[in-house]
C-alpha cells in the first residue's frame, strides 16, 4: 500500500465516521441527511483504495444521487414536523441501548486489531467495468434479473402505500358515509 493510498484511507475513514456520528446525533433531519451524504461520498473514496472503481461510481450515483435526494424530498414534504421531540420516560431505555451497542461494537472491533494480511497482486481487470460487468452478466445474470423485478415491485408498492385518495374516491367515500348517517337517522324517527 503506497503512501497516497494510506493518506486517502485515513482521510476517508475519519470523514465517514464523523458523518455517521453527525447522522445519528443531529436533531434536525436535514442536517442528518447532509451528514449521511458526507459518509457516502467518503465511502466511495474508500472503495477507490480497494480498487473497486465501478462500485465507487455506483455508490455516488445511486446513494448520493438517488437515496439521499429521496430522503431530502421526504423531509421537505413533511416540513417542520420532520423534527420530533424525544418523548419522556424513554431515557433509561435509550441509555441502556447506547451502552449495550458500545460494548458490542468494541468487542467486535477489537477482535480485528492486528489482523495482518498480505495484499495479493491484482489481475488487470479487477474492479473495472469490464471485469465486474463480465461476471455480473455471466455468473450473476439470474440474480440481476431478480433484482430488477424487485426494484419494479418496490416502486409500485411505494406508490400504492404513499398515494392519497383521488378526488373521485374521496367524493365516493363522503357520499357513502352520508348515506350511512341517513340510514342510522331514519329508524330513530
Amino acid at each position, binding site marked *: 500500500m503506497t503512501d497516497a493510498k494510506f493518506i486517502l484511507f485515513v482521510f476517508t475513514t475519519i470523514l465517514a*465516521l464523523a458523518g455517521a456520528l453527525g447522522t*445519528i446525533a443531529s436533531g434536525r433531519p436535514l442536517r442528518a441527511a447532509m451528514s449521511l451524504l458526507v459518509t457516502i461520498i467518503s465511502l466511495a473514496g474508500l472503495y477507490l483504495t480497494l480498487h473497486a472503481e465501478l462500485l465507487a461510481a455506483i455508490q455516488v450515483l445511486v446513494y448520493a444521487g438517488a437515496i439521499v435526494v429521496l*430522503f431530502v424530498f421526504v423531509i421537505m*414534504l413533511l416540513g417542520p*414536523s420532520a423534527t*420530533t421531540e*424525544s*418523548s419522556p420516560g424513554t431515557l433509561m431505555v435509550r441509555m441502556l441501548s*447506547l451502552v*449495550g451497542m458500545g460494548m458490542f461494537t468494541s468487542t467486535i472491533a477489537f477482535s480485528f486489531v492486528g489482523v495482518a494480511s498480505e495484499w495479493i497482486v491484482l489481475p488487470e481487470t479487477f474492479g473495472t467495468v469490464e471485469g465486474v460487468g463480465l461476471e455480473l452478466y455471466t455468473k450473476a445474470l439470474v440474480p440481476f434479473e431478480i433484482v430488477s423485478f424487485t426494484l419494479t415491485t418496490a416502486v409500485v408498492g411505494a406508490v400504492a402505500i404513499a398515494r392519497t385518495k383521488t378526488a373521485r374516491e374521496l367524493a365516493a367515500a363522503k357520499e357513502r358515509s352520508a348515506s350511512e348517517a341517513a340510514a342510522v337517522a331514519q329508524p330513530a324517527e
Partner: protein
Amino acid sequence: MELGLGAYLLFASVLFGIGATGFLVRRNALIQLMSIELMLNSVNVVLVAANRFHPDNHAGQIFAFFVIAIAAAEAAVGLAILIALYRLNKTVETDKASLLKH
C-alpha cells in the same frame, strides 16, 4: 505504515455500531431509516475489502452491487410507509406508532 484487511474490518465494525446505536437510540423514523443505510454501507465495506483480499473473482463486489440495489428499494418502501404513518398520526415519531399495540 502498512494497512491490512484488519483496518478495513475495524472501520466497518465501528460504522455498523454507529448505525445500530442510531437505530436503537433515536425515535425519529427518518433518522432510523438513515441509520439502516449506514449499517448497509458498512456491510458493503466488508464485502469489498474481502473481495480485494481474494481478487480471483468479483463475488464480493457483485454482492455489494446487489446490496446497493436492495437498499434503494428498501429506502423507497420505507419512506412510503413513513408518509402513510405521518398521514395517520401527524408525527414521524416511532413511539407514537401504536395502532397494532392492543
